[in-house]
């Protein structure tokens, strides 16, 4: 499938992303023309003076739609890049950013916070639900690392098993919290299913400050990621310290995942499918795969969010939508690659 030069695909994906961002910013209950949109963008970025538009329209575009659009795109990109890292490090094409239980940790943290609020316990303003989700995922990562620590090289099987163990304990915890929440369980379920409703610039900028540096750090390790897919003996023979690099990249990509999940809730399948689709287009070399996956993840999740926001009659939780579309798509990819293997 690799016909055009790989940099061309990168440029193409950036262009598509820009077009979709502009297109998505127009759509909504108040339809906007491109002229109005550009006027608002120029005004808000300081290139032109106060435009001759309703201040309500300006508010809707700049304070409601754009932060949500940017937030959805960055979460998609962050999850996709984290997916690339997990698949390379765990040497397993079926791994995703949630394999180590980070999503369960976030869900546990968020539901604990929601439960505390429900029983009338007022948390300090700084400790929001998102903050608890973030802390929950970091603690989960720490627990997984502790459990896997005796493994001399942090081998992938040990990590995957540790992740499964911790995640299953946490899911039991989440079920218990849901049980305690009784009638108010909806709030927890809704958080877990994921949503970009009401995302503001503050959260979005905070997210950008975690996701962009993580992506850059990961990109800088593209060669190591390539080599590490061949196994430990091969990569050590080339001078790579498996344990150090694995730890470093798992921490960075988990931070990235934790930031995404705590802002948006658990959005499945993006981190699994986007790296697969991207690999089919630009091949497995991480120096192209990582940026291309990032942009594809942005495009995919932005389209999905716009669909829930504008196209569908009622606002479906985005996590449900990605799983409903992503699951079957993955089945098709999986089946086709399996068939290719048998025929090959």
């Amino acid at each position, binding site marked *: 499938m690799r016909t055009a030069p790989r940099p061309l695909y990168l440029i193409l994906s950036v262009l598509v992303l820009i077009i979709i961002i502009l297109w998505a910013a127009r759509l909504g209950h108040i339809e906007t023309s491109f002229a109005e949109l550009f006027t608002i963008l120029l005004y808000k970025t300081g290139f032109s003076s106060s435009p001759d538009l309703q201040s309500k329209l300006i508010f809707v575009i700049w304070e409601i739609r754009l932060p949500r659009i940017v937030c959805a795109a960055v979460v998609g990109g962050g999850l996709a890049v984290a997916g690339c890292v997990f698949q390379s490090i765990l*040497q397993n094409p079926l791994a995703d950013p949630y394999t180590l239980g980070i999503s369960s940790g976030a869900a546990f943290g968020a539901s604990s916070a929601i439960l505390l609020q429900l029983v009338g316990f007022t948390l300090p303003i700084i400790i929001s639900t998102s903050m608890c989700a973030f802390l929950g995922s970091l603690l989960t990562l720490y627990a997984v690392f502790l459990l896997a620590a005796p493994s001399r090289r942090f081998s992938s099987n040990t990590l995957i098993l540790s992740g499964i163990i911790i995640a299953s304990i946490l899911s039991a915890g989440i079920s218990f919290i849901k049980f305690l929440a009784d009638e108010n369980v909806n709030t927890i379920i809704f958080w877990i299913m994921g949503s970009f409703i009401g995302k503001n610039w503050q959260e979005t900028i905070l997210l950008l400050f975690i996701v962009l540096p993580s992506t850059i750090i990961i990109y800088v390790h593209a060669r190591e990621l*390539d080599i590490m*897919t061949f196994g430990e*003996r*091969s990569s050590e*023979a*080339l*001078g790579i310290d498996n344990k150090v690099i694995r730890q470093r990249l798992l921490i960075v990509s988990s931070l990235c995942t934790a930031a995404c999940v705590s802002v948006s809730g658990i959005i499945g399948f993006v981190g699994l499918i986007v790296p697969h689709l991207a690999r089919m287009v630009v091949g*497995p*070399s991480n120096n192209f795969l990582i940026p291309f996956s990032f942009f594809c993840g942005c495009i995919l999740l932005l389209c999905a969010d716009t669909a829930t926001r504008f196209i569908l009659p009622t606002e479906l939780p985005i996590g449900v939508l990605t799983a409903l579309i992503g699951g079957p798509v993955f089945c098709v990819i999986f089946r086709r690659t399996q068939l290719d293997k048998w025929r090959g």
Partner: protein
Amino acid sequence: METVKGYSLSQVSYSYDQITGIDEVSVSLVPGKFYGLIGPNGSGKSTFLDILSGYIVPNHGTILLNNVPLQSYDRNELSQILAVVPQFFNQNFQYLVSDVVLMGRYPYLSRFSPPAKSDFEAVDQAMEMLGISHLRSRSITELSGGERQRVMIAKALAQSGDFILLDEVTSNLDINHTISIVTVLSKLIRDKGITVVAAVHDLNLAAACCDELIVLKNGTLKNFGPTSTLLSERLISELYGVDVAIISGNQSQKQIIYNYVRS
């Protein structure tokens, strides 16, 4: 002190979970030779290679490489003089053959610069030597086992080290490719003075191409010396419990003959 090139192992032992892998092995390996590592299954050949490559650290004993303790090498420095072709490797992703061989140049690349012309030349040369140039734009997952093995050897050659360790790499290959690989290695030993240590199961291959044999049994060094004097009917029967006949073939090369029916 005069610098001693090559490996010098003294009293090296390695055990895990109270199972002895390697027990008090002392050998010196000099540059420019083809060393064959033979012994029955489970005799510690792979463990011995892991120790030589620094992948595992022995519990006791010292290993000097070019007169410097193996442990004191910087990883990157070591990977520029020592290449390893493991027996098994994973591959789940469709990397192109040329990209895989280029990974052998990793020790020479700085993080922020792309590979230089000299790196691509080394890659082309390695692929040329192993006769896989025509596979360069194929993906590694669609190759046969033997072709993949040659790609991994090309990757090790692209590393341009003075030492190459191979763990039963010819066991997947047909006789034609086995012969061409040992020919390539022998040529490198002759022309560039590199050292090859290879675990081999095929005793005829060992007899034909190895200058010296390292014979392991139950983790201990049973014999060490020139192939021509060491390889005997008695040694093989002691090692494997199989009766063989050794005859002189072409160019007085030793050939080992055995029956596939127990007498």
